[in-house]
């Protein structure tokens, strides 16, 4: 029976990351980490490690990430070029860590926008109800009726690639889930006694909602933010891979994989392998933090 109680809250909707699905399919022994108390510290360590590398890369990389001809062309990893070089002689290690900075930054921006807009929107419609709530739910249903990545590609192909566009469009996809989650949180809590007490002393509705109610819902919202970040990592990389990303030749993991793809066929695996590992680590990190936060076992009291 404890098995059931120990289960983490699985995110609903389509935005569950591929990594999450793969992890669920793994044998119990490996899956155990997702449900144990180790999830949060492990996830935070992975993310901390990646952030640290990204920050360092802003100050120093062995070679310039954009410089070509830093060594022999398409060379396997050596002491001079830890991750090897690509077909134009750029240092893959320098590019990988510099690309990490881009991916981490954009993922955090996208999730922050979705979290902020989604929870404020959801909280307001949940608290006040009425036609706005009805209209919101219908709108979300329309948006969520389309497959997520297809929707992103569709909008990007209309508005065109570019930094701002990619960020905003990628934020639209997890947004409905945040609206729903925040609305549900407020709906269940708005008639609790402490909310009633906050109204009883004469607080304004907005004060009751955002100062007294929302802080109680921070944990599930942050948990979901982390889980959806895992999805966002994948989508940003996917957009970069098909050339619809931030910029056509930005130093970014997805576009690095695309650039190294033809060489992989020739046996030069390192060009695509290391950025791939980067994506995997970042997604796993976010997924584990999300699992840790939503795990019942981690709940105090």
């Amino acid at each position: 029976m404890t098995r059931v109680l120990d289960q983490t809250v699985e995110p609903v909707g389509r935005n569950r990351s591929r990594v999450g699905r793969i992890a669920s399919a793994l044998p119990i022994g490996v899956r155990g980490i997702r449900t144990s108390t180790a999830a949060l510290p492990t996830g935070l360590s992975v993310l901390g490690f990646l952030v640290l590398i990204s920050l360092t890369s802003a100050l120093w990389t062995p070679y310039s990430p954009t410089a070509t001809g830093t060594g022999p062309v398409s060379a396997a990893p050596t002491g001079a070029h830890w991750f090897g070089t690509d077909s134009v002689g750029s240092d893959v290690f320098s590019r990988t860590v510099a690309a990490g900075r881009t991916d981490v930054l954009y993922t955090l921006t996208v999730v922050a926008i979705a979290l902020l807009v989604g929870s404020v929107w959801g909280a307001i419609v949940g608290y006040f109800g009425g036609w706005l709530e009805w209209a919101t739910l219908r709108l979300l249903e329309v948006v969520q009726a389309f497959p997520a990545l297809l929707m992103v590609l569709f909008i990007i192909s209309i508005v065109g690639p570019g930094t701002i566009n990619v960020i905003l469009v990628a934020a639209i996809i997890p947004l409905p889930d945040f609206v729903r989650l925040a609305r549900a949180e407020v709906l269940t809590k708005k008639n609790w006694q402490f909310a009633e007490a906050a109204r009883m002393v004469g607080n304004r509705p907005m004060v009751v909602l955002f100062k007294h109610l929302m802080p109680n819902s921070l944990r599930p919202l942050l948990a979901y933010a982390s889980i959806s970040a895992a999805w966002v990592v994948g989508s940003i990389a996917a957009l970069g891979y098909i050339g619809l990303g931030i910029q056509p030749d930005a130093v970014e993991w997805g576009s690095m994989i695309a650039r190294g793809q033809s060489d992989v066929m020739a046996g030069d695996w390192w060009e695509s392998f290391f950025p791939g590992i980067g994506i995997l680590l970042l997604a796993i990190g976010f997924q584990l933090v999300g699992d840790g936060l939503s795990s019942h076992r981690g709940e105090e009291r």
Partner: protein
Amino acid sequence: MRNDTQILVRVRDYAGGFTSGSGFTPVLDRVSFDLRASAITAVVGETGSGKSLMALSIVGLAPSTFVRTTGSIEFDDVDITQFDDRSYRRIRGSELAMVFQDARAALNPVISVGAQLIDACRAHRKVAKAEARDIAVEMLRNVKVPEPKQRMRQFAHEFSGGMAQRVMLALALICEPKLLILDEPTTGLDVTIQADIMEMIVDLVLSRGMTACLITHDLGVVAETCDDIVVMHHGTVRETGPCSQVLAHPTDSYTQQLLRSSRFEEFSA
């Protein structure tokens, strides 16, 4: 008899019920009673008799599914059933306040007790935060919370039931309302603490000249502390009058039954 005293709250023919998908369920049926100014009025009756709902209606916090069909509630000679949210918010806390039954559930788990008191204070008074803090500390001292300054920084789960109820009382009293409604304020507390809290409530109410409405099951408390009594049953008022008179010579069959079934009989015998 104090016939010349003023009436603070006048409930007249107040009726209403809950609407749901399946229709309308009447709950309150032409409820009429008065709350005399500076007096303590008890509202007694069994669970489900509509006494809490009546109290919530007075402070304008009845659930949104509750619909008033007829009647009026006059507070200070103004019919507050006609108030919109904004007007109600202006008097809630400052003119009338309510203490809920489960104080620990009524305190926010993630906001410090001090912040809640300061919020309540600043909702009605134009005071600086530091000043509101001083008022809040003073208020906690009034309700006999030890070490009020340290307690300000603590959270609901760090308070015992009795202490939480004191905080709740401070929250209700911080803007010095004219009317204080107490919804079973001592239910769920230890018996010894019940007496302490009740005594403190009566002291605070009397010393401030407030009007109080005490919703309770405990007829012993009513006999000791209240001036008037309202007996409710199945959403109707069965009997009202001065406590001494109603408890000694109940005229209504339900009041008689209530008295017989409570330990009060032992007191009066």
